[in-house]
């Protein structure tokens, strides 16, 4: 079943390959059906998921089955390398609390992305094939339990993204695409090295072969004592942690590796921005949670403070940069940086509250930022500009749009009753409770104010007041005597149309519902989080002595 | 005629050498395809003389047999070659081999 979730989009892509490229509608519908089917499967998985099983490490019997769920394990590549032993790579997937919410998020965002892609007119066939490939790769990353498989999906993801930005993007798309590609590739090269190092340092507890299994790697007793990344080799473990962390931090993106993000977002078409912010950024922090921290717990403990500081820098720096932006999409991009800072801060706390907050923030940021980018796309479709100064008084003319924007904006600034608040609150609760990150949390709280500042300011400039003199639209008096606005070459509905509502309303509902009752998501996380904290904790104790 | 050495191997070899040289000369210098063919026949005859001479003075039958096959071969060669020459003539209205240099391009 999990495999089906992962490969459904690719199957859809193959089907699309067979459809003549003139049949645009069929291509879109096939993609949509695949995404919806994926969504249905994700919901089934959510229903069938047992929140009591912790995941992270192997169960009591040494196999992943007692701990992970929906596990599928097949030998994939088995090479005899002579004196190097044998290379055993497995097709090993499964979910635990860390990944199950991400799988659901990915399915959701993919489906919404397909709807959002409806307006793509250029090379529809190629677009959707790449899109589906991307969707599969993202999903694969979240469920892979074999490091090699993870790496494969991780790299597969890059390629469609590069083309989707580079072909369907804005005017400066080549620059943005190549920047994104190089940045991410830079990170993954190191990941490859660490992966190989880990392979030679870890033995499968059952077969006593070297293994890429992340489940085996998460237990420190499986490490060969004097191997390159074994427990004795402190220096190499630190180096491995750092380069791995940088690899993931680029994806997050963490200051100072964040500059690809605004460019990529500004140039990417709306659905790709949605995917990028909604899912791809989560892969960075997910990778930290799944790989970076449990594999090197003692290094994690030593670097909690530094991670926390980077988180705080992300929060405040991102907020300030957002405050100065004139391009709405760029502002939202910087707000992403700011919000991912909360995730980092929560992780740095290293306790259950903080980690829960971080994971929940990953989910919420996925839905909320998706909403923000969709809303930016809506206005960009109509006005062909994203300059904040080119608008004003939209609330009078597009009330539904303004209403949803208000919800999204307030969700983004962490208003209680909307999901973003709970995750941010938990991040702070965790970060403050941890002695290491207490003062960092105290500084980071400023992010709440500046987050409100840039969002409210942009809200005011775009939606409140009256039309500006140089606005991107005209006012005309309608037959009923009321003022209406008129976009220069927009034929569709002025306010949101059915398709746009179909993308936005589910997200709004999720945001509000999870803001009021977060347990459907948090309930799935807790046992895994507590287990993860436990995996990290004993080392914390010994290293304190 | 004492001063004349008895007829031996070298005599035959000398004749064959002269025939070979003349045949080669014809092949090298004459433009006419038919004459070139004649040169080739001379070369073949020179070879035959050599075969038979060595066969005689060595006492084996191989040379004899070989010369027989050479003659057969020469016949076949001549037939084919003339057919080719006739074709060339049809194509180029000439049997002047120096004007047939289309392979140069």
């Amino acid at each position, binding site marked *: 079943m999990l495999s089906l979730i992962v490969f459904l989009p690719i199957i859809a892509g193959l089907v699309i390959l067979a459809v003549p490229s003139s049949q645009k509608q069929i291509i879109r519908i096939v993609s949509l059906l695949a995404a919806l089917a994926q969504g249905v499967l994700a919901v089934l998985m959510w229903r069938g998921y047992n929140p009591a099983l912790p995941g992270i490490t192997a169960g009591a019997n040494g196999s992943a089955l007692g701990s992970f769920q929906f596990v599928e394990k097949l030998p994939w590549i088995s090479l005899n390398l002579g004196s190097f032993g044998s290379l055993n790579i497995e097709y090993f997937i499964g979910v635990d609390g860390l990944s199950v919410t991400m799988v659901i998020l990915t399915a959701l965002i993919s489906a919404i992305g397909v709807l959002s892609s409806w307006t793509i007119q250029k090379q529809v066939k190629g677009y959707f094939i790449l899109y589906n490939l991307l969707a599969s790769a993202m999903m694969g990353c979240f469920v892979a339990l074999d490091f090699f498989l993870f790496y494969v999906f991780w790299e597969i993801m890059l390629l469609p993204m590069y083309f989707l930005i580079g072909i369907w993007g804005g005017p400066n798309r080549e620059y943005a695409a190549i*920047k994104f590609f*190089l940045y991410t590739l830079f990170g993954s090269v190191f990941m490859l090295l660490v992966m190989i190092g880990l392979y030679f340092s870890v033995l499968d507890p059952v077969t006593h072969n070297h293994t890429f299994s992340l489940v085996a790697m998460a237990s420190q007793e499986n490490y060969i004592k004097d191997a390159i990344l074994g427990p004795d080799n402190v220096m190499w473990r630190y180096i491995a942690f750092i380069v791995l962390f940088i690899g993931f931090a680029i994806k997050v993106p963490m*200051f*100072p590796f964040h*500059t*690809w993000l605004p460019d990529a977002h500004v140039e990417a078409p709306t659905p790709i921005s949605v995917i990028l912010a909604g899912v791809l950024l989560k892969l960075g922090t997910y990778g930290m949670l799944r790989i970076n921290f449990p594999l090197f717990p003692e290094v994690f403990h030593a670097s909690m403070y530094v991670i926390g500081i980077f988180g705080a820098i992300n929060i405040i*720096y991102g907020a*300030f*940069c957002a*405050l*100065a*932006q004139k391009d709405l999409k760029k502002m939202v991009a910087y707000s992403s940086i700011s919000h991912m800072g909360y995730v980092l801060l929560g992780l740095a706390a290293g*306790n*259950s*509250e903080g980690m829960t907050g971080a994971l929940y923030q990953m989910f919420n940021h996925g839905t909320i930022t998706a909403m923000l980018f969709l809303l930016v796309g809506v206005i960009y479709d109509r006005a062909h500009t994203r300059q904040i100064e080119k608008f004003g*008084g939209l*609330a009078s003319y597009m009330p539904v749009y303004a209403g949803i924007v208000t919800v999204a904006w*307030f969700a983004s600034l962490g*208003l*209680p*009753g909307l999901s973003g*608040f709970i995750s941010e*609150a938990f991040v*702070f*609760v965790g970060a*403050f*409770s941890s002695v290491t990150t*207490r003062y960092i949390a*105290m500084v980071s*709280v*400023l992010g*709440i*104010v500046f987050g*409100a*500042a*840039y969002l*409210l300011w942009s809200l*005011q400039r775009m939606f*409140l*007041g*009256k039309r500006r003199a140089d606005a991107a639209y005209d006012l005309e008096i309608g037959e009923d005597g009321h003022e209406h606005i008129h976009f220069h070459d927009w034929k569709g509905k002025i306010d949101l149309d059915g398709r746009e509502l179909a993308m936005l309303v589910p997200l709004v509902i999720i945001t509000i519902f999870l803001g009021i*009752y*977060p*347990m459907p998501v*948090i*309930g799935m996380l*807790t046992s895994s*989080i*507590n287990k993860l*904290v*436990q995996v990290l*904790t004993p080392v914390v*104790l010994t290293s304190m002595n | 005629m004492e001063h004349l050495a008895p007829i031996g191997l070298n005599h035959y070899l000398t004749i064959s050498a002269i025939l070979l040289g003349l045949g*080669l000369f014809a*092949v*090298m210098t004459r433009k006419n395809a038919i004459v070139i063919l004649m040169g080739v026949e001379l070369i073949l005859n020179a070879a035959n003389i050599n075969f038979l001479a060595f066969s005689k003075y060595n006492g084996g039958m191989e040379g004899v047999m070989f010369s027989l096959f050479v003659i057969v071969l020469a016949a076949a060669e001549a037939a084919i070659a003339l057919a080719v020459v006739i074709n060339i003539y049809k194509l180029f209205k000439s049997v002047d*081999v120096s004007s*047939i*240099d*289309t392979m140069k391009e």
Partner: protein
Amino acid sequence: MHSLIQLSIVVLLLPLLSFVILIFFNRRLPRRGDFIGVGILGTAFAISAYIFWSVVVQTYDPAFRLAWDFTWIDLGNVPGVGPLQIKMGIVIDNLTSIMLAMVTLISLLVHLYSTGYMAGDKNYGRYFAFLGIFTFSMLGIVLSDNLFSIYIFWELVGLSSYLLIGFFFEKESAADAQKKAFLANRVGDIGMWLGILILYSQFHTFSFSEIYANLAAGKFAMSHAWLTAAGILLFMGCVGKSAQFPLHIWLPDAMEGPTPVSALIHAATMVAAGVYFVARIFVILTPDALHVIAFIGASTAFMAATIAITQNDIKRVLAYSTVSQLGYMVLGLGVGAYSAALFHLVTHAFFKACLFLGSGAIIHAMHHEQDMRWMGGLRKHMPWTFATFTLATLALAGLPLTSGFLSKDAILAGAIGFAQVEGGGIFYLIPVLGFFSAMLTAFYMGRQIWLVFFGESRTHLKPADPHHSDHHAHDSHASHSDDHHTEHGVHEVSWNMRAPLVILATLSVFFVYSPDPLDGAKGWFMKMIPTPATVVGEANHQIGELPLGTHQPVLAGVAPTTEVSAPEVAAPAHGEAHAAAGAEHAEAGHHYADARQAEIVHAGHAAHYTAIYISSIMVVLGIGLAFVVYVFGIINPATTAETLRPLYLFSLNKWYWDEIYDATVIKGSMLLATMLSWFDTNVVDGLVNGIAFLTKKFAFANAGFDKYVVDGMVNFTAFSVNTTGALLRKLQTGKVQTYVVMLLLAVFGYFVYYYTRLIN
């Protein structure tokens, strides 16, 4: 679940229902659904009144407390803490039930009033929806039993005030004001949030009762300074919400909202939430924190009063008077006059709501003229408004026989007692500022009454200002045009606006609260709301003596929170004290475990008559001054203003706070934002691009090497081959015979070679 809890949940959810119905369906309902808003609030008030009746009147027990909670978020078995749940819950005690009744009543009256005031607005239905969510949030604050949910509703109040203040969002000034209000509140909120975090990090719970029990048990492991900090930080929430110095700046600007909203938000509920919250956390405030609170309250009261005397906008005067009165309440809490402060909260809510609604009636009648300089003589045209407005003014000024007198007097008495107990000269500043502010209050309210209601109409004196009229044309009443802009247009407002005024004015008279017009302590209110015993006083001082280093990560799995069982039974020990204190005020001091608290209560009681005398004198002085200036004209305000020009300007420009904040915080933030953005594009991204540039340069250098050296060699090979080929091509004649010649040459060459070898 107790039936009162169930009812309170109903009360809480009813306004939310109103919001949901009206936000989605207001355009499809007749009259835009205003009757739904009013009806639902009426129901809510009826239930609240029942709760009030059951709790305060029937039970009449100062220690009454009902609590109920449920697990909201279950974090499972957290390593190092044990099972951890975040709970949400409701608590009902006397204070809650009084607040509940007060909030729903004022909200109901504002709803009713708004059906008249807002009639004809194009977003009429949405307005009622916003009122609904505001009421919901406010009730949430009142009913919350833990810090987390109070923070949630706190922010929701911020949101709904944002929506309401910016209701006329097409006006830039309204849009600015709503943003300013929200951001100022947020600044306060982060302080409050940090305070919550300090407490949570110690006890892993948000519940008030559990936190108090843990504190009382001396389980606070951090230093005492952290506890003081927690108190002050939590108080920051109040500073934001209750518009205390230095975050008071948003409240006067918030007058951009519709006037009934001002009555609801800025008189009765939202601003009161801050005071209510400080009252809730009163027991954890250390003496140092209380001193800070007292000084902030006093300076706010004084500063706002000095600003109010020069303002010309009728609503702005009231806004600054609100800030000033909130300063009183905060001052009261700071000096330990807990009951008095809350008493003032309630009385102020009613008379200030009356004043705002009255001013709304005036503005409505004057066709959106807000400047008092162009009013006058309205007494004859609007007798109902005049009467109620005057009564409320007297209450605000603190004249005897009014509710304001009772509460303000109690606060000032507490301030005197506090100064005596603390014994320092500097602490006398607090009562002195309080009394001086009382005088100023009397003065500016007297000025307002005179300018608005007495004398002759000055409408014609108004300079023609097209911009000004244009400014108000955007207000809700597009239908009301300027053609009625004469004295003849001024008439009394309709019944649905008048009735709230009368009700609120009635609630501003002393007998509602106390049988003795001179002593509020004899009334039911102060008996029902006794000062709770602190949990961080001298008796608990040992908690600060735990060295910081002994703080160990709680890993054993036995969390301190688990020792506290049901919240319902958490506070009985204090409940005893409350009961006794409420029963006999004079002897209450003996029952407080903390000596300082007991002394202050006692001294406050002793200073009661001193306070009455002084404050009465000050009020009479203030009103007399107003008469001297405006009625008898002995002092010309204009010339005085000219003489004291710097002071006048200082007051008129609100102590230049807006300018100071603009120059420092806002400009600073924007500058920093611009700088960081520049840094981001040019330095961070520049670094990246620089690396890319260098890589590219290197690549080009490499490419040059490649092109000229490596490729050069290749090309040279190709060139030589080409040349050789060109030479050799000459040999390739296409003539078979040439080849034969060459072949033979080769054969001959071989012979030559062979023989030369043979020779050697």
